[in-house]
């Protein structure tokens, strides 16, 4: 709880804060859809950055964790619709990992709105826009995640605990003597 408060305090003031969303888009469907959104000049929120991978199945859970740990406020994975995967079933593998990972992130206090998996086909430029906008809207509502600050706070807490434990230990041994 204290970590949470510290993180909120340590974050940039709300007024200056801009959400940062990292998006992993598969080359064949969602990245192409993002291109289509561009060609169609569909204006949407600038607060997301795309990393292109060949398939949503390539998205290693560590990429997601790393993005959060480095200060992303949300992570979006975009893949082909079920049954439409360019590599037949990479998106299903992504889906399986997604559910596990979302649960795990939840245990770390990362709200489920901050981690999304969306199926967006090459023709759905419009959907890129709506998904990105709604995700950024969610993030703005939730506020900064500021996980790096929280992680530092956790580290401090653990150091503190360790120190306390070893003190107690020393006391105990000295007592025994």
């Amino acid at each position, binding site marked *: 709880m204290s970590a949470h408060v510290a993180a909120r305090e340590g974050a940039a003031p709300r007024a200056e804060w801009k959400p940062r969303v990292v998006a992993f888009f598969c080359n064949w469907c969602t990245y192409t859809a993002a*291109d289509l959104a561009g060609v169609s000049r569909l204006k949407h929120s600038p607060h997301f950055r795309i*990393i292109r991978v060949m398939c949503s199945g*390539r998205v290693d859970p560590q*990429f997601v964790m790393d993005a959060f740990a*480095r*200060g992303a406020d949300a992570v979006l994975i975009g893949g082909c619709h079920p049954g*439409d995967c360019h590599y*037949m079933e990479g998106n299903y*593998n*992504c889906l399986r990992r997604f559910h596990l990972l979302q649960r795990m992130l939840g245990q770390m206090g990362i709200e489920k709105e901050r981690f999304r998996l969306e199926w967006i086909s090459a023709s759905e430029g419009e959907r890129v826009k709506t998904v990105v906008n709604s995700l950024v809207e969610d993030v703005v509502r939730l506020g900064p995640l500021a996980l790096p600050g929280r992680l530092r706070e956790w580290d401090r807490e653990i150091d503190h605990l360790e120190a306390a434990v070893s003190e107690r230990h020393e006391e105990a041994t000295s007592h025994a003597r």
Partner: protein
Amino acid sequence: MFEPAQQNGSPRIGFYVCHCGHNIAGKVDVTAVAQAVARFPGVVLSRDYKYMCSDPGQQMIMDDIREQKLDRVVVASCSPLLHEHTFRTAVARGGLNAFHFQMVNIRENVSWVHDDPADATEKAVDLARAAVRRVRLHRALEQKKVPITPAVLIVGGGIAGIHAALTLASAGKKVYLVEKEPTIGGHMAKFDKTFPTLDCAACILTPKMSAVRSHPNITLWTYSEVTKVEGFVGRYRVTVKRKPRYVIEELCVGCLECIEACVFKEGKFYDEFNQGLGKRKPVYIPFPQATPQLVLIDPEQCIEFKSGKCKKTCAEKCDRDAIDFKQTERIEQIEVGAVIVATGFQTVPSEKVPFYGYGRMPNVFTALEVERLVNASGPTGGQVVTREGKAPKAVGIIHCVGSRDEKTNRWCSRVCCMYSLKLAHLIKEHTGAEVFNFYTDMRTAGKGYEEFFYKVMDDGVHFIRGRVAEVSDWAFTPDEEGKLVIRVEDTLIGRVRRVPVDMVVLATGLEPGPDSQQIRRLFNMSCSSEGFFLERHPKLAPVDTFTDGVYIAGACQSPKDIPDTVAQAGAAAAQVLALIDAGSKELEPNTAYIVEEECSGCKSCIALCPYTAISFDAARKKALLNEALCKGCGTCVASCPSGSIRQNLFQDDEIFSEIEGLLTPVT
């Protein structure tokens, strides 16, 4: 662990940001981007330029590589899907490995989709930072070449497939033409005349159909469907299912005596070729010029199949014993280097436009039905008559049925204005009836099209500008008794009109065929939002798809008329020829590989690979990856618990560095 990414000392990265005229520079402050990137570690040179993809732009990269001893290059411009190849080539021509390059998309992903210049510039810098960090880690890669089997599969035997097949066959390539109907010819074979020249469709099509049949390089499989496609460009392994006709192809000469001899004295069943306006027997040939000239039996209708108690007069009559009630489907396996998908379209089903009363009021016809009515070999011998057999005195042609309409399809089907003009002319010629065209806009762009429009106006055909609200059979005035009444707002005179006619023709639009989704999945293609197959680039790669070696032609890509379809089929054939004659094709080197000493032999990757590229070496207890089978999705890489599977172009450290670059706070 990793082979060191850099050969010697710190990297020398060259960064280029493209203005793309105003496309990027109008929103992104490109000078600021170049300045910001110049300060990133490893960047020795940072420039902005009007058009990086132009010849001078590419030359600049090549010169800088030599003069400034660059060993890595990053270009921030458009989508890598558009120009990654261009810049990789430039980098290679400059003397570097083509993969010591990374592209940043600041047009489609930034300048075209964001409003605020400050936000756009900030995002461009973030993306550039990620690329600069990433490119330092890039490994030199070799592209593998695959040989191209000089054989082509063409799916769909309409005019597009026919034209492409003949072009490729006459260039000496082996062609397999697969058509799901019993005959080739497609929609065009059903037309009477073609606009704007009024050539008889059969006269220009049937010679090409018989040329397909007789060409030694073409294997024609009608009544057949592609059921499975495996492999990759240069070597697709295709499975084709050939449905039984119950007639031995090699024996049948198309004398049609079996049809005459059938126990059904008259046709009784829906005649597909004539849109149901005629009736056919269970043993039939779709139409007189069908290619191949082979009869077939419909087992759903034939008495022998239903009861086993038919006198089998058809078989008795056949002196070549060509009828075989026990025939079963045949499976063919072929290997081809490339595929042309030319599966055409369907007309918008009239159920989608209930307010025009098709099916409820008998004298509402579809345009395809009228094509058959005006055709001399059609069900009425060329008489344009109502379903009661009477010549109409007035005919209304309704344009844009299922086109340009929020409720059905939003797109313009491109051909309906012209074919409506053609039908108006033919109906007038055949019957002398008054013909009314109800149009939204007349779209007659094409060689000789506008002239044809004027000719039809001169014929005395009426044109009423307005979208028809409904066709009904209720009479308000005596002259409407017994007629169909077309209610429309005439937008040129600003009044609602009721036009009584004897016959209504629905100019139904074009939409993707009923099995287009299935075909799309089969060949791993994408669709645009309407459901037509998606071309690789709307202007510069109109017949390519995102799957290498798979091309599209004709109305399966978008509605188009015969001239455009033929042109596109020729273009697709030329692309295939270029591919085959090059002899080989370079593959993207994004395959995975296993670092054997790190593999724990857990086998979790093996089941994940949809291409069975990973196997298990039981003796050494290690997974083995066959790079020739790997298509480079990277699913196994993400799943390997020991991190022993790597993917070229998408290494873990490369992606981590991208994440790090994106999320480094701006100072």
